[in-house]
């Protein structure tokens, strides 16, 4: 079974909670996905609106684990402080660590990411780093204390799928025993299935479900695609080849020419 920092997880789909048409649809989509981990964030609270209190009630009712993020942080200091606040509010040492380096692509600042991961690990956090597929950065993150890696499939919210299949395959081959989660860029269930067929352990997505025409149906579709992709990986797929090879036996064919 999938294991994140000593916690066994049955569902290989991690789901984001943002951008749904309504709180009710978010709740239904979460249930339809079968997810055991929802990602959440921290934002400014106002005494009048108390938005956070209502949202937290909704999430608590779903009875799943939460993975707080440091979304929007562009510096190590911001990310570390946000993680510290998240640990207190959400009561978990898990943190999806994002240190954003570039606004157009929301590409991780991998230098800041490694530094923040080191600081947070030393403070007892269990870091889920949102990173690129770069092997050297991956090594540095593991050296910094991360026990799993979350490389992007494509930039957040683009829905492009797996932009660098070679890089992702290399990462999988290089770290056969490290839990690897594709985080971001997934658009369709087939992208998620492809990630699982590469041997990735799980997929984290948000926009592809939340912005679908029917988020609840899409959540279910992703759940099945991820299960199918995982089962396909475990069943040891054939390698592609250039030339055709008849699947029906040639021997015994009637002579009808």
């Amino acid at each position, binding site marked *: 079974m999938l294991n994140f920092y000593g916690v066994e997880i049955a569902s290989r789909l991690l789901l*984001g*909670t*943002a*951008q*749904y048409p309504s709180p009710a649809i*978010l709740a239904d989509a979460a249930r339809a996905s079968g997810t055991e981990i929802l*990602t*959440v*964030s*921290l*934002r*400014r*609270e*106002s*005494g009048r609106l*108390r*938005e*956070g*209190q209502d*949202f*937290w009630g909704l*999430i608590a009712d779903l009875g799943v684990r939460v993975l*707080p*993020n440091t*979304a929007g942080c562009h510096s190590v*200091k911001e990310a570390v*402080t946000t993680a*510290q*606040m*998240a640990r*207190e*509010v*959400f009561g978990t040492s898990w943190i999806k660590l994002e240190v954003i380096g570039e606004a157009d692509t929301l590409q991780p600042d991998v230098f800041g990411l490694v530094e923040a991961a080191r600081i947070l690990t030393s403070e007892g956090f269990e870091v889920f780093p949102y990173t690129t597929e770069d092997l050297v950065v991956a090594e540095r993150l593991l050296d910094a204390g991360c026990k799993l890696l979350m490389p992007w499939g494509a930039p*957040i919210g683009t829905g492009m799928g797996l932009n660098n299949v070679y890089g992702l395959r290399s990462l999988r081959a290089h770290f056969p025993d490290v839990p690897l989660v594709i985080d*971001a860029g997934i658009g369709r269930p087939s992208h998620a299935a492809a990630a699982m067929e590469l041997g990735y352990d799980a997929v984290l997505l*948000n*926009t592809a479900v939340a912005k679908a025409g029917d988020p609840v149906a899409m959540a279910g579709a992703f759940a099945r695609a991820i299960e199918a992709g995982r089962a396909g990986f475990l069943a040891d797929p054939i390698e592609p080849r250039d030339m055709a090879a008849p699947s029906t036996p040639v021997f015994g064919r009637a002579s009808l020419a």
Partner: protein
Amino acid sequence: MKLTVNGDEHDLAAADLAEALRLLELDSAVVATALNGAFVPAASRAATALEDGDRIEIVSPRQGG
């Protein structure tokens, strides 16, 4: 005392961070706090004195990806 709370100017007669949360009616809410960019745990709010010009951030759970 002039304080900046979540980016807005406030005039609050609060000697410490816990008192500021009470005056803002957020003392019973699920929130985390930072003072001038540094995290202040809930248990330390009452012992965290405020000064004119301090920047307070008060955050709560929200949707995220």
